[in-house]
């Protein structure tokens, strides 16, 4: 194993708890490792909400600055409590920036990547799906976004939104059923229009 691999594994080995505690003591290196570990899922979730890459970057920065400030008083109890705490900061930041809910069709396609983007039918399906997700209940929608786009497991999502893992799974299942229903209704409407 070379020195670079050593560093990578060192980052992986550091527990979230140790990084939080060191950061609380003013250790910038630990806080940077925390940032390295968490920026990706957080950014993707924020971007899915802001629809604007620059705004998402600004909010991500503010979230981490607020987290650093909050460490002055934050008392670590568990990873779940930390995730919940961080998610509250993210939600507050999003609320502050976007008081009006926006529909998914405003999401800049440049911010998305499709596995088979050349397929026109697929792109259309994605567009319809994005709109349908916007019509879901807030918590159900969050579960889908964090699972499929931020790449978090149901257990991790549970920690973020303060739900049991089983509850998150139920939410996921319910969200899929609702999406099916929404998409099916949409298809029916489109077919009726075409028939006329």
């Amino acid at each position, binding site marked *: 194993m070379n020195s670079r691999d050593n560093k990578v594994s060192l980052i992986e080995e550091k527990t979230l708890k140790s990084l939080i505690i060191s950061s609380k003591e003013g250790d910038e290196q630990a806080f940077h490792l925390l940032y390295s570990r968490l920026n990706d899922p957080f950014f*993707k979730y924020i971007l899915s909400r802001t629809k604007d890459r*620059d705004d998402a*970057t600004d909010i*991500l920065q503010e979230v981490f600055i607020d987290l*650093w400030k909050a460490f002055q008083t934050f008392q670590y109890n568990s990873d779940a409590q930390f995730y919940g705490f961080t998610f509250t900061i993210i939600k507050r930041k999003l609320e502050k920036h976007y008081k009006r809910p926006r529909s998914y069709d405003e999401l800049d396609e440049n*911010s998305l990547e499709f596995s088979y983007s050349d397929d026109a039918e697929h792109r259309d399906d994605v567009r319809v799906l994005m709109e349908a997700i916007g019509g879901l209940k807030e918590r159900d929608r969050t579960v*889908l976004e964090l699972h499929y786009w931020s790449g978090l497991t149901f257990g991790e999502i549970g920690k973020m939104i303060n739900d049991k893992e089983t509850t998150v799974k139920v939410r996921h299942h319910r969200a899929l059923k609702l999406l099916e229903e929404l998409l099916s209704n949409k298809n029916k409407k489109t077919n009726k229009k075409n028939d006329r």
Partner: protein
Amino acid sequence: MTDKKLQTLLKSIHIKPLTAEEKIRAWDQIRFGMAQSTAAITSKYTRETISPFKKWAYVAVVFGLTTSTVFAAESSKPGDLLYPVDRAWENFELSVTPTSQQNTLKKQFALERVEEVRDILKEAGIQRTATSIKKASLVLTSEKGSITNTSISKAVLEEIAKPNIEKINGTATSEETSTTTATSTEDKTLSNDSKKRIETALGTALSYLGETKEEMLKQGDKESVSYIDFMFEQLNGQIEILPDDVTFNIDLTQSKENVGFEVVSKDNKTIIQATVSKEPKATSTETEDTEPVLTKKIEIKDNSLSIVGKNVIEESTGTKPATTTKTED
């Protein structure tokens, strides 16, 4: 649509993550925010121990000013009539602060100097924007020629993964430092007044940072020196976004005699740093083999710092800016 097809469709959508360069830039901003927060918290005690009444009374007596004037002075910036009042208050605060707390306060003031420059640039319509960073064309020259955006990302990623403490701290900027400067000047011509304000603010900030660094080095306070160096980095970041079609002349005579400044090439960038009595002078990294990609020509001559924009040089010589390394003793 079936459950399975729906899940496949959801999985086929990927939100583009931050690129390696964006991550570095974001961390740099976070670190600046952290510095602001840390300085504000640690100096809270010091600054709260003096009542506002005493503050107004002191400044009003010394300068024969009204309370409202002193209030106005608090938000003044270099070049403003009331700015000397603001600085006088800082000196007073320092004089009544226990020695053990003084460096904390000085770090707070150093941050204020950098923020003053940033605010004045912002007022003049000059600021680094996330949009322009995104749109900036990334061109890195090497022995083999220019490298594409994709390969830069890869190179930067590899750089981040290296076991380098500086990278973990987020202080080093790696290859991305040679990227095109991301500046928004909102297509406005810089007025003479704005230009003068920028020159004054930069001169004030450079002098303050240089003098403070010198004092902290004398005390052997390495942590505070490192903080001031970080402030120098921030200031160089502001200089980097100055318009390319203007020449700025900054008066350095307000600095103490034992504080000098030098312009060096580092990481393909021209930067200004302080040279103080107890610090070994930094060695220029410039060599004949590698020609840095520069967007500015920075020179020090007769206690004056000149920052010449790329367009000005191209207009006058028809060539791109050359690297210069001069030292002010």
